[in-house]
């Protein structure tokens, strides 16, 4: 089918206003939140219902046209980067909250619903939706599901995967399945939902999502503690966790980050080598006692200053400073590269030391802001795109940083995903057998590899069965790859 026929087919499904095909308009969609990679899709479609999504996918399947689903497009790993000669399915018009069920603690939403809307919807009843990625005012639940988004409070409450209880999914062949029990726990069978959440849009498109909501905590207390360096702040983190306390969040920022944040949003942070923001929530009596313990631990680790948020306003100011950290880098550097790596908490100190060494070696500044409680680092590599070669150097340094994370027993990514960006690093973490076995799952869901192809796996395996018209992979054509 040529492009003209495909446009016609899509217009029949969606009406003329639901299909974008003019070159200049398509350019808007060429990248997601990671702007290093740009691909202009053949078509962008904007379905308004699950049925339309299903019809669009069915049409793609019938014609062997690859497609990529996208929510708000805020992802930071190029997971929603379009594919050439492919269709970008933008789900922002599926933004209804379909059901609020307080007695069962569930909310059912469409994938384009913005993360923060869920908490806003149920706040009046005393509930909230726990996963809170920094992008929560713009990122969609469908995108959160695809990436298994974290957030500052996932140390205590878990990730998106722990809060998605069911999903209606359009599979890459256009059929619809309901996975996870939704409101009923323990559906028999494989944990297909657990495998689907975090699969970065490569296994299908969720069109209806059942979320778990939680009671708002009785008490919340937040403090900010300043330290001479990240090592002392790290000592406090170990002391808090080692004391059997599970805070809602522990965030760390180094001096470079503090400077940038001050310049950008002026939260009035103290000048320090490192700052910790610690938040406790839960029953009043528990929070009160443990908060005193946290203060004690910070003092024992030579905190130069401890500020306790006196009210919601001051707490919001602490968090404003933290959540502005990525964007604030623009105030101290022309360009910056956001890295996302994980190390075991006990390896934080050693890893930060390694990052400092690498920074010196490459002659590029690295700002560190991270979820200290779960060892999830976000080193920001600062560079100047106008200096020839510096962008490449920054990317190389960012790569060295994740390798350091792996060397210390960690992971390539804690919440931003592999996407397009980190495919090349996958063999550093997984053997080819590991990745081949993962792709068995891919083959079960998407045998023709039309659903967000070219992501996660650097060496895509081919799936054995080939019914229907689809394009043979060039590697297979050349006889260089086995059927899998």
């Amino acid at each position, binding site marked *: 089918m040529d492009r003209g026929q495909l446009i016609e087919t899509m217009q029949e499904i969606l009406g003329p206003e639901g299909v974008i095909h003019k070159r200049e308009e398509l350019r808007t969609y060429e990248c997601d939140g990671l702007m290093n990679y740009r691909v202009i899709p053949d078509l962008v479609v904007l379905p308004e219902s699950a049925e339309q999504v299903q019809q669009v996918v069915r049409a793609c399947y019938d014609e062997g046209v690859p497609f990529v689903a996208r929510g708000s497009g805020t992802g930071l790993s190029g997971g929603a980067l379009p594919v050439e000669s492919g269709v970008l399915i933008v789900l922002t018009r599926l933004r209804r909250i379909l059901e609020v*069920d*307080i*007695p069962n*603690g*569930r909310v059912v939403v469409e994938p384009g619903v913005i993360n923060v809307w869920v908490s806003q919807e149920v706040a009046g009843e*005393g509930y909230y939706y726990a996963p809170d990625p920094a992008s929560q005012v713009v990122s969609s639940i469908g995108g959160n599901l695809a990436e298994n988004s*974290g957030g500052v409070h*996932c140390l205590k409450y*878990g990730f998106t*995967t722990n809060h998605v209880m069911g999903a209606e999914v359009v599979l890459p062949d256009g059929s*619809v*399945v309901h*996975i996870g*029990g939704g*409101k*009923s*726990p*323990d*559906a*028999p*069978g*494989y*944990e*297909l939902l*657990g*495998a689907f*959440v*975090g699969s970065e849009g490569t296994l299908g498109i969720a069109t209806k999502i059942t979320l778990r909501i939680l009671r708002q905590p*009785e008490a919340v207390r937040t403090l900010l503690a300043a330290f001479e360096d990240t090592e002392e702040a790290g000592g406090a983190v170990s002391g808090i966790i080692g004391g*059997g306390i599970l805070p809602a969040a522990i965030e760390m920022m180094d001096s470079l980050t503090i400077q940038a944040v001050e310049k950008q949003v002026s939260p009035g942070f103290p000048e320090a080598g490192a700052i910790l923001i610690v938040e406790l929530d*839960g*029953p*009043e009596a*528990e929070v009160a*006692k443990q908060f005193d313990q946290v203060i004690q631990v910070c003092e024992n680790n030579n905190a130069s200053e401890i500020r306790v948020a006196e009210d919601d306003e001051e707490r919001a100011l602490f968090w404003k400073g933290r959540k502005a950290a990525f964007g604030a880098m623009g105030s101290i550097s022309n360009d910056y590269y956001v890295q996302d790596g*994980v190390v*075991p*908490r*006990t390896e934080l100190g050693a890893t930060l030391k390694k990052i400092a060494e690498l920074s010196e070696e490459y002659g590029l500044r690295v700002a560190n802001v991270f979820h200290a409680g*779960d*060892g999830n680092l976000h080193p920001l590599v600062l560079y100047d795109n106008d200096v020839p070669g510096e962008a490449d150097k920054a990317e190389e340094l960012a790569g060295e940083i994740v390798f350091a994370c792996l060397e210390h*027993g*960690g*992971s390539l*990514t*804690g919440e*931003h*995903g592999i996407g397009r960006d980190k495919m090349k690093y*996958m063999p550093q*973490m*997984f*053997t080819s*057998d*590991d990745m*081949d*076995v*993962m792709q068995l*799952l891919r*083959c*079960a869901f998407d045998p023709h590899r039309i659903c967000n192809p070219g992501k996660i796996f650097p060496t895509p395996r081919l799936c054995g069965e080939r019914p229907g018209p689809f394009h043979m992979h060039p590697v297979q054509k050349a006889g260089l790859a086995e059927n899998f």
Partner: protein
Amino acid sequence: MQTQNLPTEELQNIVGADNVREATAEDAVEGVEPSLVVEPGTIEETSEVMKLAGREGLAVSPRGGGTKMGLGNPPTRVDLILSTSRMNEIIEHVPGDQIVRTQAGLKMEDLQESLAESDQLLGIDPQEEGGTVGGLVAANSSGPRRLRYGTVRDLIIGIKVVLADGTVAKAGGKVVKNVAGYDLSKLFTGSLGTLGVIAEANFRLHPIRETARTVFVEVDEPDQIPEVAQALTHSSASQFVLDALEMRWEDDRGVIAALFEGIEPAVEAQSSAAVELLRSHGEAKLLGKEDGDEFWDDFTRRPWAKGDVALKIGAPPADLSAVLDSVRGAAERAGVEARLSGHAGIGVTFAGLSGEDDGLVAVVEEVREIRVRRGGSVVVQEAPLSVKERLEVWGPVGDYLGLTRRVKEKFDPGYNMNPGRFLGGI
């Protein structure tokens, strides 16, 4: 059993002569007798055994503590029992990171005992004794504290598996926060040995809490159970953070109990508030840590005995009243005795049924018809073979059966792993 056609000698060469033995009647899986029991000592040996089995087309049933061998349909065939019992080590426990990596054959009791030395636990508390880590994952076992910690899927952070063709693969890792690659740890959770052998598993841990209080209420009417559950879950007066919320109904009386764990002032405040709240529902009794431990040991035993039909019913928690009514009503009509227990805060109810086969089958079918229509499930967890023959133990499967089958066929195209035990005849 006939063993002359089996590659006994080759198996002995892989795992050592002492670690291959002829199966006995005790090794039967739901009436199907295997030929050999093989006990590899390492993941490499496991891989070699699986390669050999794959080549010979032998049906393999992985086994840990053997506590869940009654779960599922009788297998269509079993040649080898692959026992993980020799792979029973903790590979790595880092208290500061609150993670543990273990081999699959490690007994849960041994794991918890070892973790307790560092004041930590794995937050999964199934009721059966003698189960292993691998069995826990394969059967997706859970207990009362799932209300606080979640289930296996929420706590497993990495896995190493051996597939039917001997391929060894891992997924996840040893950090809690990790989104690199597909989450195969979750896929294997509850897969009942049908996708491959679980060889290792890594988990997130939690600190053991300082102390506890238990609050329970005895009731005469089944409807009072859901009332108490909803009151504790959604009270606007006080926000309760419960570690467990469990119920029992047997011999025309019921009990509902809440567990509060944490530091002294918090559990004190929470449990007192609960006693106050529940005053209007009956006489609420309060137990301290030690009395509470004793209470829960007895309270959480499954409501069935050997030979009974055991059901696990999944339903929205707010439907608890309807679940209790439907089981009791169906049982009464069929002349079957029914005892109930369950995770009232979650929506999982267990039913133990005793009576004649016809009546037992009628009760399962009636209850299942209602639950499945409402999006839930009724799984027969244990039953005499005479009853299993007349029922699909997993119940009707939703629109995901085809996908389930495709997953199975990618991982085990020869249907050699526990064939027939899983849903849809997988």
